[in-house]
């Protein structure tokens, strides 16, 4: 039997999921070994083998594909442990990355920090200012060379960088995405001066290759981030690859991309691995959604410090128009958007005295160290987890599968001291309010995320993942307007599950302005060849790349998306086109109508302005390889009666006026597909607790997913 394995390394735990050819999943969770991620990784492989009844070597030899959401690159950015890079740019624009469009101080900051204007600070740059040189050359907005490149000028500047110890070069020139001639010339000069077979050879990264998109700051930062994490990732992944090979794994290691697909390590741009874990979780949602019959899904993942949100429309991961910020750096990668807000089990509750003793939850978090008060690791603030414990939802003796004992008395003290006492209410009431407030805020954030993408949140099903998702979903789903929640069977390792099922897919993108409908002439584009050539070139890149992975062109499916705008608008609206090639003016007309239709649906018909001109500004060609989707083991349904799984009861509070009420507790592992349970109840799974509130009904489906429905 073979296995598809997904691995998702997080800040606290590394998650593993192995799906066998029989469709059965095996999961494992182990603390992340930050000192050397491969230690935890290999431990997980051994454990998966063990749980599959195989020796590690035997198991690894039977793994079809090992897909990995790595954080190695992200860690290098946070730790500033990348190499000393030299940046070569157009003379006159050496400060571009330090100016950072002037508001780089806010990129990656939560809103409340960005409002305290007295204390703003720009992040420490990834390239030292003295490692930036300007080359005299210039290309204009139509791609014309208006100042030529001088080889001697390049050599002089190159020497400056080499003398200062450059370990690699990033080349990012003005308008290079439109005309990369000068960037390529510089690369050629560097390679001539420092040939590959000499020790002095250094990697050269061109912005026109990493990110051929308009906007010099974001293009340069995308390229810088890529170069900054490239060598660290390569070294780390090569080492891991060797260990896996030594351990019996014979296939290439595959990386999960934030664009919603996977590629072999050797065919991966480093910058596309950032934040891949949550994207894998979103992909897993599409897989489970297909099984359960849901295709408009909002993926949520509530952990200890953050709450991730991802929107899935029509069963597909789609790129939306947003600004991908990696750590503190604005980039333009065609990533799938995952919004992360500061809300989780560790979020701290506090009283805002200035605002009339208003209760607040977060954004500060106790994290995992010291963590909530009940962890008894020195934390004494009242957190969401403390509230959950005081309300009786969590089992103090069976938290994280019994790996951690919780002290409910410490939770009570923290809530009494910081919340209940100052507000003059009972501890139970205070805990109830903390929970409701954090649930409301999460739900409202989810609502906004869906709405901002032009969709009606009420038409979406909430997928609740992460350690705390099942405990809070009934609380936040109503604020989304969702009446159905799915808690996947493997919710606590859902990123790893998603990774294990992901397909080969990559996006090739390029900025090109095409005036589909001209305002001045009120006429449609007649240069169809120009449009078609852009698509053809992207397709050519995709085919050549995927051939190197061993796929034939017939196996590849293409999907073209366009960033479009009216007239002089700056921001874009992304449209999926019905065809790759424009055959005649009627196709242009159709595309324009499609844009206006989508625009009107998202922003209202009043907002549409077709006579103002319609431009295409960016092309995205997604290439996917048709592969057979995994089949998952499906149990036959037993009856609705879940009595056999009833493990006992404990006092829990669903209404502070009623106080703690004896509440049934079910053992998730003993539940059978088809079982139906009406709230209020608690269901204890190995790594999470389901809190089924009054008015909600839980049903276990044939794949052991929990389907929670709010009664009409």
């Amino acid at each position, binding site marked *: 039997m073979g296995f598809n394995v997904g691995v998702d390394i997080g800040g606290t735990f590394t998650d593993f999921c192995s799906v066998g050819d029989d469709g059965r999943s095996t999961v494992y969770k182990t603390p992340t070994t930050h000192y050397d991620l491969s230690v935890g990784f290999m431990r997980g492989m051994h454990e998966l083998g063990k749980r599959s009844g195989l020796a590690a070597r035997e198991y690894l030899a039977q793994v079809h594909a090992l897909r990995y959401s790595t954080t190695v690159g992200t860690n290098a950015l946070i730790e500033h442990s990348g190499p000393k890079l030299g940046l070569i740019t157009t*003379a*006159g*624009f050496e*400060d*571009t990355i*330090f*100016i950072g*469009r*002037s*508001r780089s*101080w*806010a990129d990656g900051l939560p809103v409340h920090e960005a*409002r*305290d*204007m*007295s*204390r703003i*600070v*720009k992040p420490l740059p990834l390239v030292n*200012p003295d490692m930036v040189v*300007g080359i*005299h050359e210039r290309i*204009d*907005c*139509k791609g014309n060379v*208006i*100042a*030529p490149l*001088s080889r001697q*000028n390049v050599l002089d500047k190159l020497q400056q960088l080499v003398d200062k110890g450059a370990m690699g070069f990033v080349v990012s020139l*003005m308008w290079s995405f439109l005309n990369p001639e000068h960037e390529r010339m510089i690369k050629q000069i560097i390679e001539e001066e420092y040939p590959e077979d000499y020790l002095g050879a250094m990697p050269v990264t061109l912005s026109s290759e990493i990110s051929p998109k*308009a*906007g*010099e700051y974001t293009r340069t930062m995308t390229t810088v981030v890529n170069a900054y994490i490239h060598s660290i990732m390569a070294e780390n992944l090569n080492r891991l690859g060797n260990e896996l090979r030594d351990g019996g794994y014979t296939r290439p290691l595959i990386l999960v991309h934030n664009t919603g697909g996977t590629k072999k390590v050797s065919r991966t741009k480093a910058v596309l691995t950032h934040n891949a874990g949550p994207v894998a979780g979103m992909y897993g949602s599409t897989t489970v959604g297909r099984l359960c019959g849901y295709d408009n899904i909002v993926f949520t993942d509530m952990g200890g410090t953050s709450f991730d949100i991802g929107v899935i429309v029509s069963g597909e991961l789609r790129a939306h128009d947003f600004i991908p910020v990696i750590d503190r750096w604005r980039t333009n990668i065609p990533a799938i958007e995952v919004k992360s807000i500061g809300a989780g089990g560790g979020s701290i509750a506090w009283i805002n005295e*200035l*605002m*009339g003793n*208003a209760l*607040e939850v977060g954004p500060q978090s106790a994290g995992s160290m010291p963590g909530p008060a009940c962890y008894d690791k020195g934390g004494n603030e009242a957190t969401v987890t403390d509230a959950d414990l005081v309300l009786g939802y969590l089992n103090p003796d069976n938290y994280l599968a019994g790996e951690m004992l919780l002290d409910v008395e410490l939770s009570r003290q923290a809530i009494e001291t910081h919340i209940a006492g100052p507000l003059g209410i009972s501890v139970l009431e205070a805990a109830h*309010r903390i929970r*409701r*407030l954090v649930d409301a805020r999460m739900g409202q954030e989810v609502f*906004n995320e869906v*709405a*901002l993408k032009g969709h009606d949140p009420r038409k979406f099903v909430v997928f609740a993942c992460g350690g705390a998702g099942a405990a809070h979903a009934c609380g936040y789903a109503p604020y989304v307007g969702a009446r159905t929640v799915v808690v996947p069977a493997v919710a606590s390792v859902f990123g790893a599950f998603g990774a294990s099922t992901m397909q080969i897919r990559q996006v090739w993108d390029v900025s090109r302005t095409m005036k589909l409908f001209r*305002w*001045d002439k009120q006429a449609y584009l007649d240069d169809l060849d120009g449009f078609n050539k852009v698509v053809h070139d992207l397709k050519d890149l995709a085919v050549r790349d995927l051939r190197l992975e061993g796929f034939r062109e017939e196996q590849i499916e293409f999907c073209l998306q366009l960033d479009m705008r*009216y*007239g*002089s*608008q*700056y*921001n874009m609206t992304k449209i999926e086109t019905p065809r790759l090639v424009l055959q005649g003016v009627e196709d242009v007309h159709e595309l324009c109508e499609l844009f206006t239709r989508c625009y009107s649906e998202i*922003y*209202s018909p*009043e*907002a549409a*302005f077709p006579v*103002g*001109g319609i431009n295409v500004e960016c092309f995205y060609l997604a290439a996917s390889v048709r592969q057979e989707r995994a089949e998952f083991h499906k149990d036959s349904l037993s009856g609705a009666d879940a009595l056999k799984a009833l493990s006992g009861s404990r006092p829990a509070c669903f209404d502070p006026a009623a106080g703690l009420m004896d509440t049934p507790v079910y053992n998730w592992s003993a539940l059978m597909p088809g079982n139906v349970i009406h709230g209020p109840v608690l269901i204890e799974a190995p790594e999470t607790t389901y809190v089924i509130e009054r008015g909600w009904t839980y049903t276990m489906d044939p794949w052991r997913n929990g389907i929670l429905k709010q009664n009409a």
Partner: protein
Amino acid sequence: MKTPPTFRYGRDFEVVQRLRPEPMTEREQAAQHLIEGLEFEIFQHKAGMIALEGKETTMKLGASTAMRWGDVAFGIYTAQGDLAICATGIYHHAVLSQLPMKYIVKHWRDDQSVGLREGDSFFFNDPFYGGVHNADMGLAIPVFADGELICFIGAAVHTGECGGSEPGGMVNGARSRYDEGLLVPPIKIGEHFVLKEDILAMLSNMTRDPRTMILDIKARLAACRIAERRVNEIVSEKGADFYVGALRKVLKITGEAARKKVSRLNDGVYRQPRFLDTTGPEDALLKINLTVIKKGDKIKLCFTGSSPAIPDRPVNSYFQGIIGLAMVYFCGWFFHDLPANNGLLECLEWEFPEDTFVNAKGDMPVSYAPATQVAFAQGMFMCAARMVYSIDPKRAVGSWNSGFAVTPFGGFNQWGDPIADITPEINATGAGARPDMDGVDSAGAFFATMSDCGDIESMEADRPFVYLFRNFFNNSYGHGKFRGGSGVGFGMMVHGVPWVAIGGMGFGTRFPATLGIFGGRAAPTVFVQSVHGSNMGTMMAEGNLDLPCNMGELYGETSNETGTRVLGHVSSPPKPFLGGDTIYVPVSGGAGYGDVLDRDPEFVIADLRRNLVTSDAAERIYKIVYDKSTLRLDAAATEVARSTARDERKRTAKSFDDFNRSWQALRPKPEVLRYYGAYPDPAAVAGGAAL
């Protein structure tokens, strides 16, 4: 229905006085008991989410520079017109947009010929109600529940071109308000959820860039409609009573919190005169005599002693615009931890004397009011730093650059489309220095804190320019123990078109725009350079390597660039630039903090390495001794140099009386003072000295 009062055909002086929250209505009062703590907190978050969605949508759909790289004031206003919820960094537009709402309530709600109905939309740009200048335009919609008006939703943002006698939205040569283009008091532009095409045709016909005008209007409207849907959802779930009561409660508790916070400050009188060096078209000295009186839980702003109004120059400001800019400081700095809404104004009082240029009246032009307003705001920073120091010293900070450096332009772009707008580097100024660190280099614009200066490629894509450089501008900030954040300088060459009109708006060429704090120095004066008949294009084509790469290099003794070079005030009327002509514009940095001799010498060396300070300034101002080839600090020699400098200060020091005597004996030239009023106290002669 009421009989229409006749004053609606002129301006309404009563409504613009109503900047503070209206009294709580019986309806709002009756609903207060419904607003339970937790539900209210959940409501506040939801309302904030609605405003955020509206703001992001507006920016996403808009087209003008301010929409592209700027900031939108998106707010929810009570049924009486008070701003309750907003998402923005341009707080003045959010706060001031309440005036058009109050105007609509007062004049149109009960008017038979206009009325207020579901599906209506209103447009406005008269600065008398918007408070700033004509280029700032807004749109509002009333929201109803079962036929009852429950709130307004509005979006305001600078559109850039408003059909004045000069392109770009700021009319340097305006002699009256009639030169400034569109002047629309709140007017209904849509009914039954449909915009009226005849009105749109009229508005677009009166500007140079009709497409941007329409896109911006549609952007505002679309965002308001989305927010309206969200409000309706709250109302259907919680009821109109809850919604109306909760909006009011937001105002109430914000006002209480603001007063509580103000009461923690030391009582006192804080003075900061501010000076402008332009009336718009000409150099002249003008004074804003700001006195801030803090007593109990109130802060009062007084302007007695400010220069007279100038009936035919655009530098006048309506008083409401000044208050709007005060709110920029309060919302972004002092009250950064409180909701931004009208309630904050409960702690604010003001006194604007008649016949001063900070209290424009009649037909006076106000195109350059933003300059006057930011000049005032800098005084607000300086007074507030002294007020705040005792309770929160880390937030006693120097001001950001307040001189502007706007470059309006107009003509046709390289694609043949008409354009008229401003350059985005208005959003690239340096921040003020702090008690414990330098100001942020090129941080943005203090009055639009969510804005940025965009990518040059985005600018060049549909503007007829090639940037020659955009880099930090050394010495562009105030020096000090901690220096102000560096500004930038940019050079542009007209490219791809035969000609385009370019002007300038701002101040700080003759008199520093941004003063230092607690011994820190002012950001230096700056000027714009332009070269007509430039050979820059030819030099570039020939591969010349000796081209300027930053503003500092333009100050060298030689330049290869030939042509007619003009050094001018940052404020200038638009004039034609032919293809190949160049312009170089400085965007200044922030104020310095503390004594320059207390600056860590290693910080100066670090700035030398980054070319953020010149060797001249390092030696003469900071008294640093170092090896010029290696930039290695000679710490001992530096200490000696600094000690000598301190001794020299003591030797040349004067008593205050001596200084005052010698200072009072000095007097600027008469032509500099022609609009100033009596010197030194403009108020000493009734009526001032306006020509």
